[in-house]
């Protein structure tokens, strides 16, 4: 194995792939543009949804309980409670009204509510909502809080009329202050970013890997290459480095894509759920986390190279390698919701999960050196193993000359 030969192969493969529009497109161009589009669309969707639940809440009386007095009472007592509530014209059928967007919520009042109010008796206000529509189901909370405030106001008035200080109703005054160091959007980022990075690092090299051995066998360029001076391991390592390069290129282009989305609309990066910021990350952990990621990329590059060598044809290579993609996606998706506190020790020992865990840990501003160092150590073993598998494939005449 000679470094000079490795570099000759590496340089040629990079040049070759960069000229292949298909591979270049799927591993670099697509992530750059797909990410902003995805994030902006989903982000806009969720932002719009949460806006619908808290703004312009239209409430209608049922025709049954309608009277000018009832309409007036709602207008005066609910529109003034600080929520964005508007009382609209009465409707016959609550379901029809909500679904045709005449109102987000429909209410009915006891017909004798005015008498009960005067007699200091409770009366019933019934809320009709459609929980299958987020704009309706989500608006209930706003209406409820308006009514709670209304109850408080009426109670205060009644106590004052009796000459009692209304403060006797609130023996405990609650104050809250959010001391989180990070914005509430960080959680969303903690769910998405580790998954995306781990997945891309593991599968990003696939287009290159397919082309580099299975493709080369199919185009009959492989045998001439094997009759040149370099040993087989030099050729293998040259190709291996190329695959690693492209698996990281796809991650970097994805991160560029996400950055683009962030620049276009900062809240899109958390799918519209709050702001990010205030990260406090431990430098040592960040470095270990990046090493784990690098090692994951190397492990999967080795596996891809082995699979591409095993494949009889380009098509077969594509099929096997897309199966590998599923193998990666399952653990990545399964751990999406896991928060840094929930990470179990064993997760640092399993490929893909180790990278997901390390990133969650770092983004959550936590440290766990034992976990991270174990992750690095086991990852090193995986790198060596995958390279050994690739090398044994590459030395095996049975797989190399299968035609």
């Amino acid at each position, binding site marked *: 194995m000679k470094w000079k030969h490795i570099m000759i*192969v590496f340089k040629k493969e990079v040049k070759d792939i960069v000229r292949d529009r298909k591979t270049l497109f799927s591993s670099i161009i697509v992530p750059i543009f797909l990410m902003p589009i995805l994030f902006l669309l989903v982000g806009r969707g969720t932002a719009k949804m949460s806006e619908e639940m808290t703004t312009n809440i239209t409430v209608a009386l049922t025709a049954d309980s309608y009277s000018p007095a009832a309409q007036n009472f709602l207008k005066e007592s609910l529109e003034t409670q600080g929520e964005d509530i508007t009382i609209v014209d009465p409707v016959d059928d609550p379901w029809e009204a909500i679904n045709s967007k005449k109102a987000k919520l429909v209410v009915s009042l006891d017909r004798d509510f005015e008498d009960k109010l005067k007699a200091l008796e409770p009366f019933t206000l019934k809320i009709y909502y459609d929980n299958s529509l987020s704009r309706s189901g989500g608006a209930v909370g706003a209406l409820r809080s308006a009514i709670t405030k209304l109850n408080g106001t009426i109670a205060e008035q009644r106590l004052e009329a009796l000459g009692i200080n209304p403060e006797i109703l609130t023996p405990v005054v609650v104050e809250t202050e959010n001391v989180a160091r990070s914005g509430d959007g960080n959680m969303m980022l903690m769910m998405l970013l580790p998954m995306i990075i781990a997945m891309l690092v593991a599968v990003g090299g696939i287009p290159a890997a397919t082309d580099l051995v299975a493709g080369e066998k199919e185009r009959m360029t492989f*045998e*001439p290459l094997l*009759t*040149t001076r370099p040993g087989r391991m030099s050729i293998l390592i040259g190709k291996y480095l190329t695959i690693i390069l492209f698996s990281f290129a796809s991650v970097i282009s994805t991160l560029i894509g996400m950055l683009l989305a962030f620049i276009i609309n900062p809240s899109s990066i958390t799918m519209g759920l709050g702001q990010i910021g205030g990260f406090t990350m431990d430098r040592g952990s960040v470095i270990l986390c990046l090493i784990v990621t690098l090692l994951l990329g190397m492990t999967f590059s080795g596996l891809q190279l082995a699979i591409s060598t095993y494949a009889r044809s380009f098509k077969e290579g594509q099929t096997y390698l897309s199966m590998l993609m599923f193998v990666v996606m399952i653990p990545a998706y399964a751990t999406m919701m896991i928060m840094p506190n929930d990470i179990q020790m064993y997760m640092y020992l399993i490929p893909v999960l180790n990278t997901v865990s390390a990133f969650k840990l770092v983004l959550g501003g936590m440290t766990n050196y034992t976990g991270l160092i174990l992750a690095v150590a086991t990852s090193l073993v995986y790198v060596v193993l995958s390279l050994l598998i690739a090398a044994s494939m590459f030395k095996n005449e049975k797989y190399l000359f299968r035609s």
Partner: protein
Amino acid sequence: MIELKGLTKRFGNVTAVNDLSFTVREGEIFGLLGENGAGKTTTLRMLATMLKPTSGTARLAGIDIVESPEEVRGRVGILFGGESGLYDRLTVYENIQYFGELNDMPVREIKKRIQELADAFGMNDFLDKRAGKLSKGMRQKASFARAIVHNPDVLLLDEPTSGLDVGAMREVQAFLIDQKKAGKTILFSSHTMSEVEKLCDRIAVIHKGSLVDIGETEELLGKYGTQSLEELFVRLAGDGR
């Protein structure tokens, strides 16, 4: 010079090449003749060190294929099959350059050599075109040039004319004659009798991996009293079944 000594290759139960021993003399064109499946490709792959012999060995230009495969590879040029085996996305220049670099040639020398080859094969017009955009004839010239960029002592060609039209076939033959004049030792396999008859100084006939006969082209023809090698081949190889 190529010297085979008991060269044998088994794939599982199949003995693809069985105890082949013969010598190809320096500067001659030698034909390896056999039907499909006779073991020609396997023999050439072993000589090019792509496959390891199960037993036996061979020496190319005095170097042992089992002991120093890397050095052997530096001394042989190959052309396997009618396919050019060029990288479509690289230019002709880059294709040839790549093989020069892989064979440890200094950059300056590669440049000089490619210019020489371009002049010799008339490739100056398409040297900077991508191989994928070339006509068949241009690709063929480029693959000749690539095979000999490092000025190898020995040329191994596995059915270099298979699938080619008459014109392209003539190009190959002209190339081989030229290379012989340049002093190269050439071993090429074929199942097309006519071209072996025309080009080769000597011939080895193999059947089911074993050597059936070897000799001067004329000698073989005289010995068996047949006028065409075609018939000779049928007689020698066909009987064994």
